[in-house]
């Protein structure tokens, strides 16, 4: 029998649970409002991006503040490939991911020398370089005015609203998550974790640490680039404003709150960080409706509650939501295979 750490799902209930969950999600577009469909699509995109960052930061232990930049690279690549060259999305999405992967690998080179906060600073520099290029290379990026992105189409059907787009995002997210889980239980994923836990021992046992750090940057940025590509397809108009440094920090929050190195954690964290501001908006919106004089107060409260929620979730589940989920009693009652 396969040891638990090497299984695709921890328990036998994992696969049916995933299938039921996906089926339920597939049926959502039929009755969700367009507002929540937009949120749903953004959750899917954030999940892919968070999974990517989690491979780099959670599994390999390389802190990166460059993920908004890699999202931008994926998004601009999509705008160029789909807009200027009119390529179909089945080509555009992987190609955008690949372009982001190459960029990520380049900006990962400092990781061969730098660790921790120093690496965070180097990737922060990467962020500002990419945004600088996006603002100033106007002939390609459209500068501050941005670029329009055509709707993705499949056999003549345009995926031009969130309802249809979601049916592209969902399977893509599921495939990329399964890929990430497979990675974690095979040779390359073990090499990542070995580097995170003990880089000298990793090297001594035969792992080319330089090489695997760059591979991790590439794989991670591929995911983030795919997320950027989908973001461009959803937004239909992208400009440097779509990629503020706070977005990079949101992504870090997702993987920390969700669970470092965990696939499930990426999903939970992405969902939580995407839904929280929406829930606060709905909440403060209804309150301001009742007390119109206090609109501004509620707006600023929102940021405070956002921060507070993250701090509390870290205080009470420092291992992330995924760990809490795995150790919850409900879960234990499902028979482990």
């Amino acid at each position, binding site marked *: 029998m396969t040891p638990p*750490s*090497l299984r695709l799902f921890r328990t036998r209930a994992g696969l049916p649970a995933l299938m039921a969950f996906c089926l339920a999600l597939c049926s959502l577009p039929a009755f969700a409002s367009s507002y929540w469909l937009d949120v749903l699509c953004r959750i899917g995109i954030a999940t892919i991006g968070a999974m990517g960052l989690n491979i780099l930061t959670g599994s390999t232990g390389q802190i990166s503040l460059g993920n908004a930049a890699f999202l931008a690279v994926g998004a601009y690549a999509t705008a160029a490939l789909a807009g200027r060259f009119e390529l179909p999305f089945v080509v555009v999405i992987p190609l955008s991911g690949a372009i982001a992967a190459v960029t990520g690998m380049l900006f990962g080179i400092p990781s061969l020398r730098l660790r921790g906060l120093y690496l965070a600073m180097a990737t922060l520099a990467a962020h500002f370089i990419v945004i600088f290029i996006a603002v100033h290379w106007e002939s390609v990026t459209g500068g501050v005015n941005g670029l329009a992105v055509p709707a993705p189409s499949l056999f003549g059907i345009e995926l031009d609203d969130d309802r249809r787009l979601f049916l592209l995002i969902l399977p893509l997210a599921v495939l990329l998550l399964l890929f990430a889980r497979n990675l974690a239980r*095979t040779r*390359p994923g073990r090499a990542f*974790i*070995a580097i995170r*836990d003990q880089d000298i021992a990793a090297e001594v*046992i*035969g*792992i080319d640490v330089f090489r695997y750090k760059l591979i991790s940057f590439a794989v991670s940025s591929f995911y983030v680039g795919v997320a950027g590509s989908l973001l461009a397809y959803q937004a239909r108009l992208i400009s440097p404003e779509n990629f503020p440094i706070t977005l990079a920090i949101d992504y870090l929050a997702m993987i920390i709150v969700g669970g470092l190195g965990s696939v499930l954690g990426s999903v939970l964290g992405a969902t939580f960080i995407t839904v929280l501001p929406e829930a606060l908006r709905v909440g403060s919106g209804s309150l301001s409706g009742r007390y119109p004089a206090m609109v501004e107060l509620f707006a600023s409260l929102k940021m405070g509650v956002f921060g507070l929620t993250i701090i509390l979730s870290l205080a009470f589940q420092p291992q992330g939501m995924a760990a809490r989920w795995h150790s919850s009693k409900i879960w234990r009652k499902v028979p482990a295979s």
Partner: protein
Amino acid sequence: MARLEVSAVSLRFGGVNALREVSFSVADGELVALIGPNGAGKTSLLNCISGVCRPQSGKVLIDGEDFTSLRPHQRARRGLARTFQNLGLFKGMTVLENLLVGRHTHQKSSVLAGGLWFGRGRREEQGQLEAVLAIIEFLELGDLRDRLVGTLAYGLQKRVELGRALSLEPRVLLLDEPMAGMNSGEKDQLARLIIEVNERRRTTIAMIEHDMGMVMNLSHRICVLDFGAKIADGTPEEIRNHPGVQAAYLGQKAH
């Protein structure tokens, strides 16, 4: 030709001479112990052999091949494995996964093969699993297979680390105080396992150990370091009666 040959290796850290022109060799199938007082340079010597440190001068050869300028992972790929004095385990992994990392150099799966799983990735993983399970059984770690290594007692962690090194199927195995922190029962058990690795698997071993009783019983030959220089090299019998060695140890006790 010696299996492992260290010739005139010198290593300095600033003003500290950790190793001064140390030469030493281990024959195929031999089990050699490295001893010496604290700070004598024993770990530094293993660091130079495994590539963790680059000596300022001198050479390291295995089966005649010059290892001196190879990076640590390249040495591992050529059949060199070691354990660490202060443990170098991957804390976020289970016992099994730690040992599987030891198979890294025997595997080929890239990111694509691993991530897609079906086909080569899966076949390869299953082959490695069998190899590693055999070692887990040999080291009597079966019950702990799926435990995170960080949750194990120190002596058990030492054994897991030995298992990880064995998973590499090394030609030369370097052990840095494998028995530190163990009680005498655990030491006896580990000694039995080390002898078995050396005799049955014909693995060449260089081992640092402070427990003199164990060293005298286990090793074919003993090499003594003091203040970074080799002061003696011979059979356990010769070392026991070597005046310089006694002085070095007595000198240390006087501190």
